[in-house]
């Protein structure tokens, strides 16, 4: 089944410029319903009140990190199956392993390009 590009995507990052970059890149590949949060707790609140088809989240944020957000999402009955891509500068092996153990759908290391973002989205959502 083709991916619905009208799905709601939540991007989470404490750097407003990064939110803007990801939003623009998503828009270029056809995704138009994009919301933004600047930390994990704000994102969690939005996720619980909305209907999101994908979360693209940074890791290193305060007060709630991307990893904590991921754990909250995976332990929430309503949200647990939401695709979740971590986009982060944290590139140590233990980070990737910890994220995978917490149930991340895929992992992108910063700085990244549009091609990588699209490829990881396809791997998580399917062709679009």
């Amino acid at each position, binding site marked *: 089944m083709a991916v619905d590009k009208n799905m709601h995507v939540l991007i989470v990052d404490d750097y407003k410029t990064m939110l803007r970059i990801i939003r623009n890149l998503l828009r270029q590949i056809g995704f138009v319903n994009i919301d933004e949060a600047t930390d994990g707790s704000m994102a969690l609140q939005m996720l619980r009140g909305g209907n999101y088809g994908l979360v693209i989240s940074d890791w*290193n944020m305060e007060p709630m990190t991307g990893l904590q957000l991921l754990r909250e999402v995976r332990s929430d009955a309503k949200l647990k199956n939401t695709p979740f891509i971590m986009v982060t*500068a944290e590139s140590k092996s233990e980070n990737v392993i910890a994220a995978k153990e917490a149930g991340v759908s895929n992992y992108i290391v910063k700085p990244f390009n*549009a091609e990588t973002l699209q490829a990881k989205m396809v791997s998580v959502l399917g062709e679009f």
Partner: protein
Amino acid sequence: MSSAVDRDLARHLESLRQQTGDTVKVEDIGDVVRALLTSLSGDVSASDLRLFSEVQNLANYIHNAKAEIAALRPQDIQQQYIASATDELDAIVGATENATNAILDAAEKLESLTMDVGGEIAPRLTEQTTLIYEACNFQDITGQRITKVVRALKHIEERIDALVEAFGPEVKDLEESAAPATADAPLSDEDLLNGPQLPDMAHDQAAIDALFDNS
């Protein structure tokens, strides 16, 4: 040590306790040892003298270390240099953020032209604006690197604080503040917040993919 010396030492210690109480300042230790050596006579053995000499050397060493640390003016380092460096770094973050937003403004305006120009030009414009968006990743990375440096400076500041305090009246605090970190403790969430790695230490996307697929 002989019982005569024990008695003599006990008498001198009691005399000192009456003069100074139970606490002796580091800088006074040398005087105390010197007074003991001068007053003791007769039955002091060679090993006793070596022991007293070592204690006196230790007191002198601590006294000199305190003087050297004071000469470094640690409060200047805290209040002037570290504070200034932190401000400069914050300014860099602010300046790069402003510059990045200006670049993004321009790129978005360029991209909006694709609807006006159409034809072969439109996809080429989109392609170039994508490259601009990708390049603007730098702001996030440099911001995180600078945050790491600021954190390191704060750590240095805390250590200086601890050092200054430790060389105050309570010298015994020195030992407590120097407790070694536990090497084999399990990684906490905080341990995983390392920020960007230096280029020659970092995994690239291919390595991340391999780790992700194989872990």
